[in-house]
Structures are given as C-alpha cells and as structure tokens.
C-alpha cells in the first residue's frame, strides 16, 4: 500500500503544479476581462473536451463492456467449475468400519467435494469403474482401485479425492497397527504440517496467478488503446486543421498536456471501473482473487498503468504530430508498440514460470517495460518497497525528459502540412 500512497502523492503534485502554472498565466494583466479561474484553465478545458468526447464515443462504451465481459469470465468460470464438481461415487468391496467411512467423507470434504458410498461386489466394481459409474473403489479397506493412473500433477476432483483418501486411510491403518490409545490416536490424527519457508520465490499459483494475468492484459490493452487514441487525437487536430484555430489561442504545451491528461483520465476511469467490477464480482461469487499478494498487485497494476501511460503518451503524441493522414497511423504506431509487446511477452513468461529471470528484473527498472515487469514482481513477492519506489522514480524522471522532447517535436511539427514530417527535419528546423 505504500506504493499506492506514493503514486497518489506524485500524481497530486503534478496536477497541482499544472494548475499553479495555469493560474499564474491566467492572472496576467490582460486577463482581467475574462474572469477565468484555476479550474477553468486551458489545460482543464482541453482535458474536459477530450474526456467528454471519449466517454461519448462508441469505442469506449463497447470496449469497456467487452473488457468487463472478459474479466467476468475469468473470475466466474473457475468458481463455476469448483461449485459444480459432481459428487464422487465410491464403491466399497467388502466391509469398511464406520470410523474409516468417516475418514473417506472427511477426505472428500478436504478435496472440495462430496461422496456417495455404495457397496458393490468385486465383479461389477471394475466394470462400473470403466463405465464411469464409480470414481474409485476401496477394496476391503486395504486397496484403492481407479480406472486410469493418476499423475502427480492431476488437479481434478477425483484425483484429489483419491490422493486424500489413500493418504488418510493409510495413516488410519498405521495408527491402528501401532495400538495407540484413543488420545494418542486423536493427537496424531489432528497433527498439522510444519510450515515450510523457501529462500527463493515460488511459482505464482491460484489467485495471484490469475490477478497477474488479468493485470497484464489490462495494462497491455489499455496502453495500446489509449496511446493510439493520443496519436490519432493529435493527428485528427492536425489533419482537420483545427490545430491552427486552437494554437491561435492556447500554447502547444497547454494543448498537448490537456489532451494527454484528458485521455489519461479516461483510461484511469476505465481501469478503475474494471478493477472495482472485478473486486465486487470476485467477492460476490466467492472468488479467491484477493488472496495472497493479489491486493498489492492490483494497486501496483493501477499505479503502473498510470506511469506507463504517462511515459508512452508523449511519445505517441509526438508521433501523431509528424503524421499527415490516417493511413500513416499504423506505420507510426508499430515501432512504438514494440517495447510494449516485448514487455508484455516477457511478463507473461515470468508469470508462467513463477521465477523471474535477471533480465526480467532489469526490465522492471526500464520505463518502457517497467509497467509490465514491476506489477508481476509485486505479484511474485520478488521486489522490496524501495526497489519498487526506485523504479517509479526512474520512470517519472524519464517521463519528464520524454515529455520535454515530445513537446519540442510537437511544437515544431504540428503546423507543418504537406508530406509526412521526418524527425530529421524537425531536429534541424526552428519551431513553426
């Protein structure tokens, strides 16, 4: 949670600085006729327009619904699978004492299922096993027979039940053979396992694994979508020539800041809707989405979504100012999306393996790939708070540098018409 607090503080400081600058400008001697206040500064006006137009757009509404549907499926389907596990039918060949029957029932409970115990003779037991009418057969309390071998990695309900029953009946038999007193037997039966601590982080599993995947997909989809919106938004203003009307009134830095801020707030709003929806749904259906390091990872995902957008949006905006027509969007966006795709694939690999490589840890400190790598490290509990903070600071510093460079390119290229502007031309020319 410390990281979240730090992230909020950093964003708040940036907003206050922007508002402070706008206030200083609007308080100039010639502005007394306008009566503008800090809340209606140019940046906020531009940002508000961006937000209004994006929220109103069909892409936002349909996109949000599609993502929500995907998240709902990812959360609900596993719980449906768990909740609908069929009762297991256990065939008994010969007799089984009541205390051992009770062990079978309790084993089923620990395997997340229920059992229906039927007595069968040995001849029909095996044919019923093959036909699937029986899930397992206990022969005289001494042997368990199943239709197919059970692998150690098998996580099906039947496999877990078989392993639990085999283990518990074995223990019960050993206890009986040891001729222990009832008190000793009870103490042995209630013995818990010692806690196990590993020096290396283990593989991501269960809830954390799911959270990591949802978070990664969310960051990838939203960074791709909103950065492309930024590029297209800048290009739209240039190609429709409205840019000339706008820049006759506001400064390029104000226009660009308002645009990326507005689109960024739309992205954050959409991400927040998705996260809140996921959390409420997870709680409603009894998903274990919030177990382990998952809560911290959710906060980290939102923070890095903002940081990632903050870094990339300037680059995409500068690219948009170089273009002239819509058909140039693809060729401009593709090279910019390569580090995003690379970071995404590396993060997926790390989540799958559960053991981040040294290269992956390095990527967590590079602003283009950190939005993918760092939340995964948080999910794997493989990063300290100060390492996290260090990566955030590196990202913020680099974002400031990128923003300055992008603004310079934007200022020089946005009013150029004709052929697509090349970076070389921008570098060798003056502004406008």
């Amino acid at each position, binding site marked *: 949670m410390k990281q979240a607090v730090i992230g909020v503080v950093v964003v708040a400081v940036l907003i206050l600085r922007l508002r402070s600058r706008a206030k200083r*400008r609007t308080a100039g001697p010639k502005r007394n006729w306008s009566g503008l206040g800090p809340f209606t500064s140019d940046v906020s006006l531009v940002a508000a327009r961006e937000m209004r*137009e994006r929220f109103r757009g069909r892409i936002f509404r349909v996109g949000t619904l599609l993502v929500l549907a995907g998240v709902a499926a990812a959360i609900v389907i596993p719980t449906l699978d768990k909740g609908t596990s069929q009762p297991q039918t256990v065939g008994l060949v010969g007799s089984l004492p009541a205390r051992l029957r009770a062990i079978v029932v309790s084993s089923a409970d620990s395997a997340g299922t229920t059992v229906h115990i039927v007595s069968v003779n040995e001849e029909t037991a095996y044919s019923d096993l093959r036909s699937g009418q029986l899930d397992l057969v206990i022969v005289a309390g001494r042997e368990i027979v199943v239709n197919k071998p059970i692998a150690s990695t098998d996580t099906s309900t039947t496999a877990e039940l078989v392993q639990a029953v085999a283990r518990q009946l074995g223990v019960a038999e050993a206890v009986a053979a040891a001729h222990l007193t009832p008190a000793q037997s009870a103490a042995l039966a209630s013995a818990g396992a010692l806690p196990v601590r590993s020096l290396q982080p283990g593989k991501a599993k269960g809830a954390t694994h799911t959270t990591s995947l949802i978070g990664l997909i969310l960051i990838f989809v939203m960074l791709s979508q909103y950065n492309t919106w930024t590029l297209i938004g800048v290009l739209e203003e240039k190609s429709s020539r409205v840019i*000339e*009307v*706008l820049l*006759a*009134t506001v*400064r390029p830095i104000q226009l660009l800041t308002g645009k990326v801020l507005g689109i960024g707030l739309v992205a954050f709003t959409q991400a927040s809707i998705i996260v809140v929806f996921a959390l409420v749904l997870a709680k409603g259906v009894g998903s274990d989405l919030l177990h382990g390091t998952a809560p911290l990872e959710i906060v980290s995902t939102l923070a890095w979504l903002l940081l990632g957008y903050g870094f990339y949006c300037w680059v995409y905006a500068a690219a948009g100012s170089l273009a002239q027509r819509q058909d140039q969007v693809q060729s401009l966006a593709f090279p910019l999306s390569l580090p995003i795709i690379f970071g995404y694939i590396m993060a997926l690999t790390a989540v799958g393996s559960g053991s981040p490589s040294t290269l992956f840890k390095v990527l967590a400190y590079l602003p283009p790939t950190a939005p993918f790598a760092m939340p995964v490290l948080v999910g794997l509990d493989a990063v300290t708070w100060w390492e996290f903070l260090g990566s955030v600071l590196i990202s913020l510093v680099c974002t400031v540098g990128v923003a300055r460079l992008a603004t310079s390119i934007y200022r020089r290229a946005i009013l150029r018409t004709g052929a697509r502007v090349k970076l070389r031309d921008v570098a060798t020319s003056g502004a406008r």
Partner: protein
Amino acid sequence: MAGLLELDGLSRRYGTITALDNLSFSVPAGQVVGFLGPNGAGKTTTMRAVFGLTDLDAGTVRWLGVPVGQAERRRFGYMPEERGLYPGMLVGEQLEYLGRLHGMSAIDARSATTSWLGRLGIEERVRSKVDALSHGNQQRVQLAAALLHGPEVLILDEPLAGLDPSGIDAIGAVLVEQARAGCCVLFSSHQLDQVEDLCESVTIIDHGRLVVTGKVDDLAHSGPRRLVVRVEGDRDALWARGLTGVSISEVDAGAARLVLDDSVESEAVLRAAMTAGRVTEFVFRRRRLSEVFREALA
C-alpha cells in the same frame, strides 16, 4: 495609438524562399481592410504571424502599442485559410469550447453560440456534427468561431472563398457590422469586386513586400483617368486601337474601358469614337480595385 494593429518590419524566410521581406503596415480599428496579393505573396504567412503560428526572423506585431502575446491573441478572432473544426463534434459544443478557450464563461459561450448561429442563419444546426454540414454552412460555423468572443481584432484568410452570393452577402454584412462596432477587420481575398464593395482600405503585397496601401477611394481616384466609351456596332472596340496615349484596359460587351495618358484630351477620344459610329456611352469612371491591383503588380 488606440485601436491600431501594427505589423512592423516582419521578415520570414523558409530556406531560400523569402515569405516576408520587411513588411510593415497597420490596420486601424473601425475599418474593413482588404489584404490582397497574388498567390504566394505572403498573405497567409502574415496572418499566421499575427497569431504566433509562424516564427518571425524579424519584426513585431503590436496591438494598442503593445507587442502581441497570448493574452492579446485571446481577444483576436481568426479564420484560417484551411478551415479548421473538429469534424465529429457537435456544432454548438464546438463553438462553446472555442469560446471558452478565448476566456468566456460557459454561460456566455452558450449564449453567444446561440446568438451567432441565429445571426448567420444556421441555428437549427446546433446539434449537427460539423462534417454533416455543407461547405457554406461550415464556413459560417468557422466565422462564428472567430466572432463568438467579441474580438477586438478580426483576421480572416479568404473568408469568401467558395461561397454562393447569399453567403458572400451574409458574411460581408457581418464584417462591415463588426468594423462599425469598432473592431479591427483584416481579410484576404482574391474576389476583388467584393473587396472593393466591403473595404474602406486595402493593402497589397507581393513577394512578401508591401506594394500599395491606402483607402479604396483614394486609390480609385489616383492614377490615369478611366474613360468608358461604347460605339454602336463595334463590340471589339476596334476604333480605339491605335489611338496615341490611349490603352484599352478591357472591353465588356462593346464598352471599351480606356486608360488615358495625361497628354490626351478626352475630346479627341470622343471625336475618334464618333468617327467610328454612333456613341452610346461616354463616361469617366473611377479606377477599379482590380486595376489598382494589376497596375500595382505590373
């Protein structure tokens, strides 16, 4: 110094091309000033320079004696040559947005939007998207965007281009009305007849340099005398060809527009015409703006 937009020594080069070459002129408030010049003369660059849309190598733009900055530009209205509006945005919301960027409150911007759309005859399109409008109506919206905030200076690049006569009349009337209200109006156009009708003054530039500036009436009465003579039966004004000290400016349906040197007596011209046939028109005319333009650039 009140109500004067001054452009002082503007210079701008693009590589080997000189767009503006020490260009200086002023636009007084209360007048419609036509800004003329052939294609590539530097008109658009000049107008963009007023709004800081092109960097100047030298020169200053001043309003009320103060170098123009962002605060001053907010009180200016601009209609660029390449019309610029968000194509997918509603007309009303777009105008309100642009008005607010000029410092208007939301209520004032909404009120002004309603007022100007009504004034320009497109109030029913307030909920239309811009790209659903005809060219003429888009032009009206663009003009409304320039006027919405009650600008002190109005600079319009080719505002009449592509308009039908009723559109020209509507926009022309607005420009004159703005000037009468004390606004400083500068607009460029290649439609010299309209410019002559609308403007009190004109400024003509070529190759980024000032060629002529002055009141339309003064320019019309300056230069050689213009004589319009119509001789019945001679639609090509063959009678006037070869007259010493007389050049034919144009022939329109048999009416020859003649330019007389100072040494030429009009009586001599009349005699030559009467010799050729029955004279049905013989009248002195003032110099047209198109003639001022052509002669200035000759």
